[in-house]
């Protein structure tokens, strides 16, 4: 992994930070900005859970738990956002912790099936619990993030630009946490578990505990993403958290590339932008998704991030050659 002179990251961050300002008059673009951020968190969380080799088809269900928790806390109990937000993550994490121990003992395709059915159960429970969630007719008039005063500084998040920056910061913090997990010994252990559980056990790795740990952590961030979603759209519908939305997150993860952390960012970014920017072709958007998916499956097995790497390598090689000839 080359860490030395990688200018692309600081550069992209600067660009990203500039976007809300550049587009401050275009509510639609700012809306997309927020959606991308939410999807990035979701994809990175799913990837974290998948890093031990457990592919979940229930990602949006946990986001849904977070979304509704946050919405209910703010709407019905007048909690401020900065309390509801972390509690949303906690709610998802608790739900995950409850089912984690039995679930992680199951491997492979059976685990995926489990998450599929769990996702449906969660969606149905949300639909059924009409008193709290408004059921299938949805929950309306969810408060937005509101204002925030701290020693004289008054930030009003009703205005989209500061709101975008807030979302960006929350996303960056989440990503930082997940990235650190990936980068450290924990990430190595998780990858080792995915490669060969038996060998991992024999060197003392408590496989079950790590699987539970990462499942809960991933679900926590999915809950956070759900909260952002709830207060952004201000309307919730249980069907937004069903099977197909979860499958979409899976596709973001695969298309971006599961191996590297940045894959989740790229996948979520590209695949959120495509349908939103081609509104006229909204009907045909699943075709584009399927096409990109097939492209990755058959040509770019490691995902789009692999393409980026290849381009980077080619640029670096070109630079080397030029230096040699100089």
């Amino acid at each position, binding site marked *: 992994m080359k860490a030395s002179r990688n200018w692309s990251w600081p550069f992209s961050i600067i660009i990203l930070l500039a976007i809300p300002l550049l587009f401050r008059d275009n509510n639609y673009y700012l809306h997309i900005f927020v959606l991308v951020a939410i999807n990035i968190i979701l994809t990175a969380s799913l990837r974290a859970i998948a890093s031990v080799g457990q592919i979940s088809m229930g990602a949006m269900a946990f986001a849904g738990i977070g979304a509704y928790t946050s919405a209910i806390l703010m709407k019905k109990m007048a909690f401020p956002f900065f309390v509801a937000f972390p509690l949303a993550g906690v709610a998802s994490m608790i739900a995950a912790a409850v089912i984690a121990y039995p679930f992680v003992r199951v491997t492979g395709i059976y685990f995926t*099936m489990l998450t599929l059915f769990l996702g449906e159960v969660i969606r149905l429970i949300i639909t059924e619990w009409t008193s709290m969630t408004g059921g299938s007719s949805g929950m309306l008039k969810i408060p937005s993030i509101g204002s925030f005063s701290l020693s004289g500084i008054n930030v009003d998040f009703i205005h989209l630009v500061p709101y975008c920056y807030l979302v960006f910061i929350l996303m960056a913090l989440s990503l930082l946490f997940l990235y650190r997990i990936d980068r450290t010994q924990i990430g190595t252990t998780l990858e080792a578990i995915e490669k060969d559980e038996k060998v991992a056990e024999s060197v003392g790795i408590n496989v079950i505990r790590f699987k539970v740990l990462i499942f809960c952590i991933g679900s926590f961030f999915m809950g956070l993403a759900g909260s952002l979603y709830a207060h952004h759209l201000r309307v919730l519908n249980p069907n937004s958290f069903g099977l197909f939305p979860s499958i979409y997150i899976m596709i973001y993860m*695969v298309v971006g590339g599961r191996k590297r952390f940045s894959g989740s960012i790229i996948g979520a970014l590209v695949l959120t932008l495509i349908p939103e920017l081609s509104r006229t072709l909204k009907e045909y958007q699943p075709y584009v998704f399927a096409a990109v998916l*097939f492209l990755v499956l058959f040509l770019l097995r490691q995902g789009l991030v692999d393409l980026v790497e290849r381009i980077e390598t080619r640029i670096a090689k070109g630079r080397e050659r030029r230096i040699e000839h100089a």
Partner: protein
Amino acid sequence: MLGGLVQAIFSGLASGWIYVLIALGLALVFSIMRILMFAHGEIYMLGAYVVYYICVKGGISFLWGILISALALGILGIFIEKVLFRPIRGQMEPAILAAIGLTLVFQTTAVIAFGSYNKFIPAIVPGVLNIGGVRLAWDRMLIVFLGLVLTLGLFLVIRKTKIGQAMLAISQDPNAAALQGINVNDISSFTMGIGCALAAIAGALMGSLLNLTPQMGTLAITKGIAVIVLGGIGSVTGAVLGGLILGLVDGIVPLYADSTTAAIAGFCVIILILLIRPKGLLGHD
């Protein structure tokens, strides 16, 4: 009251056999090609729409329509296997994702081509048989009959024919089967074809009971997976048992509780089975 229960049971049996047909196709493809063919539900949906268009719009008799639909989608299945799944044979993750891609393509095509408004295939055989106040619909009886016949037929094909034996061999060990001279490519295509044909038939039959929507496949695949989890992968009898049990539950529970609670309970049972006995009731492997 009892009459209502009997009718519910009967109705449940009919949908149960349809679930069996869905599950058989799915399990077949899963056992022999190691693919969880997620798009199986979409084939089911397409099967229903094909019958709708050639029977309701085209005026062909229903049974011929089912046959044509099964054939057409069987051929589509063979094509899909050759083009999509053969290059990635043996790798489970890409295969599921490819199947998901297919699902997107088929469902979107259906929405665009057929529109989202519900369509309806009239009953194959109209009318009811009235036994002492209990009304048993003829079309449901036909469905049960067809379900039985097709399941038996499949069972016999697997047990008694060379192709069936080849399929069994591949499901146990593809490499050993290849070494024995079995043409894994052809058998895989054939399996996919049969699986899709069964899905198409199931879809057409269900289409005559309920409405057709482009999204009907999603429920079908969920039910299909639930059946094979319940009954056990690799077991024809298990698929039958699982399908009928689920069908009966779907028929009877709504009498006593609302459908959402029933669905939640059903899924929880499936989850428990996956946790405790992933092999299902009768599964081996």
